[in-house]
């Protein structure tokens, strides 16, 4: 399906609005997700929150009360206006993975994802990588190297993260707009390089 030919007939009013696509910027707490969103967004990253209903765990459980509670998760996002017809949104996923994994509206419909990693604590990226692999959401890995400090090589990171050889790994200081832009370009190239789906007759 082309991006400019959907819903034209059902919703002519909607033509007044551009179509939107989204990418997810994921990774452990404090690895630089919002930094990357801010580096490429045309606006200061915006913050919004959502209520999620989650199964209760641990000491908060009260016997006799059903094991669910509502929690609030916050996320930061940014925007890149490509043209009057097309806007790209970048959503930084909330730090608490067990919550955003259940946030269907955040995850569904994402074209692809960037997993931001910090070589000093690569293990914080495992959850996001497993999640995108299981949901078949294409992703690239961006190793955030503040001030160009690279203490690991790409092959070392690939081995440590047990990544498929086709998953691109990029390294750089994500505070720099060209670096974060190149990560997104690598993601788009990765999406375009994927095999054609079986044509629908």
């Amino acid at each position, binding site marked *: 399906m082309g991006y400019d030919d959907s819903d034209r007939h059902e919703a002519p009013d909607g033509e007044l609005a551009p179509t939107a696509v989204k990418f997810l910027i994921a990774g452990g707490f404090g690895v630089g997700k919002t930094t990357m969103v801010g580096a490429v967004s045309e606006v200061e990253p915006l913050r919004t929150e959502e209520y999620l209903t989650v199964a209760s765990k641990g000491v908060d459980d009260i016997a006799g009360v059903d094991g669910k509670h509502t929690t609030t998760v916050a996320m930061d996002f940014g925007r890149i206006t490509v043209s009057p017809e097309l*806007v790209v949104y970048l959503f930084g996923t909330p730090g608490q993975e067990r919550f955003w994994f259940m946030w269907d509206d955040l995850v569904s419909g994402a074209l692809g994802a960037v997993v931001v990693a910090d070589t000093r604590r690569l293990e914080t990226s495992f959850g996001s990588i497993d999640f995108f692999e299981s949901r078949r959401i294409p992703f690239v890995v961006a190793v955030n190297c503040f001030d160009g400090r690279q203490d690991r090589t790409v092959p070392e990171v690939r081995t440590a993260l047990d990544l498929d050889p086709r998953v691109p790994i990029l390294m750089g200081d994500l505070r720099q707009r060209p670096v974060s832009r190149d990560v997104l370009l690598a993601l788009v190239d990765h999406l375009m390089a994927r095999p054609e789906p079986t044509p629908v007759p």
Partner: protein
Amino acid sequence: MVSHWADETPDDDPEDSFVRPYTITHGRTASAREDLTLITVIVSLLPPEEQLAVRGLEPEHRFILELCRTPVALAEIAAGLNLPVAVAKILTGDLIALGAVAARAPVAVAAGQGQNVRLLQAVRDGLRRL
């Protein structure tokens, strides 16, 4: 914060608000429209003078109408209102029902259907200009 109802700036700290989010929706906790997503783009269909003539709107509805004079995603509406996305969906759904705003659904991206080549090329061209 007493000025909440009259204040149109989006910068208020939600912690300052004494109004519970679902009070604004008259107790509704689910949107009548399940098709609204974080990146559904909303645009106002009414010129400003007609917006004023619409009766029965909460200040939050009017804030949305104002914001949507240029198209914005639902996530931006929620951020601008300082309210959770679920609440922004209910309020925006009210305005769609009134015919005051239109919604543009995002591109459908199903698993294995990532080959929107023209779309991806357009995204790439846009990113290159950054």
